[in-house]
């Protein structure tokens, strides 16, 4: 399932075994945008596949979207505690301290998921 990127929302691509989020996130109404995304994620995690891979590459998100990311990670963590093998790659550009710190802060609460901080290649 795909959620196309909007001017204020990132691309979200969901498959039974993976999730990709890329872009900027500062929607007009965070719950309106995030509810269908979280519902779709719940469906993806509810299948019998044993592994799930998450790639997140954000360049900017506003403070209202931080709560969505927090809920998103909590969701993954619960699913991993339930037995699924989940790998999260938080991708950030080497010079982007803001996104690096954000990734590190989310990492602190993750223990059941494998969580990697990954320096992303410079986007053209």
């Amino acid at each position: 399932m795909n959620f196309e990127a909007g001017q204020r929302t990132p691309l979200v691509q969901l498959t039974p075994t993976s999730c990709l989020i890329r872009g900027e996130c500062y929607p007009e109404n965070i719950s309106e945008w995030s509810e269908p995304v979280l519902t779709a994620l719940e469906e993806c995690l509810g299948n019998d596949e044993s592994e799930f891979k998450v790639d997140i590459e954000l360049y900017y998100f506003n403070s209202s979207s931080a709560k969505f990311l927090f809920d998103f990670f909590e969701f993954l963590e619960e699913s991993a505690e339930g037995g699924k093998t989940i790998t999260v790659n938080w991708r950030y550009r080497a010079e982007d301290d803001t996104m690096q710190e954000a990734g590190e802060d989310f990492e602190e609460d993750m223990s059941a998921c494998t969580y990697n901080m990954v320096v992303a290649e410079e986007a053209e």
Partner: protein
Amino acid sequence: MGKTLKSTDTVELHTFMQDRKTLFCYSGPLTEDLLTTISNPVRHQLSDKETEEIVATRVFGVFIEQAQNIIRYSHHKTKATGDSIGTIAISLADDGFLIEAVNVVDPSKKDVLEATLVDLSLKDQKELRGLYKQRLRDGPPEDSRGAGLGFIEMARRVKKFEFDFVESEEGALFVYRGWVQ
């Protein structure tokens, strides 16, 4: 208004904006729709100035939080649609950018707002980072319409910020200024 504006007044406006190196200024009713519309030109303005992308994103981030503060908390609304009225501007400042916002504050919220900002101004970056995480875990305070994170987010992105309350005919104006480098 009352008085007729002369062409020299218009020139004065032009000169004033040029002299203070204001790249973007909006004053009036602000909505999320309008914010979507002005986001792109604001971004272009910032990237035109040979600014590092990371700095431009930081300026943009403070701009978005300030704009959303006006939308959520301005006490001055349009009569017809109830849209929030305020002023927001981005200017060049010494070695960086100045982001300014003004809106009428709800008199019953003024003291809490003041205490919150005084508290934030005393914290270093490490403490702000911790507080941001804490607030994220705990959820928003009762009377917050956002996640209660906006002012912490701004304090983390700016080199320094100042705020003030100035009396006006419309009521007490909340003035927030953040400098980004």
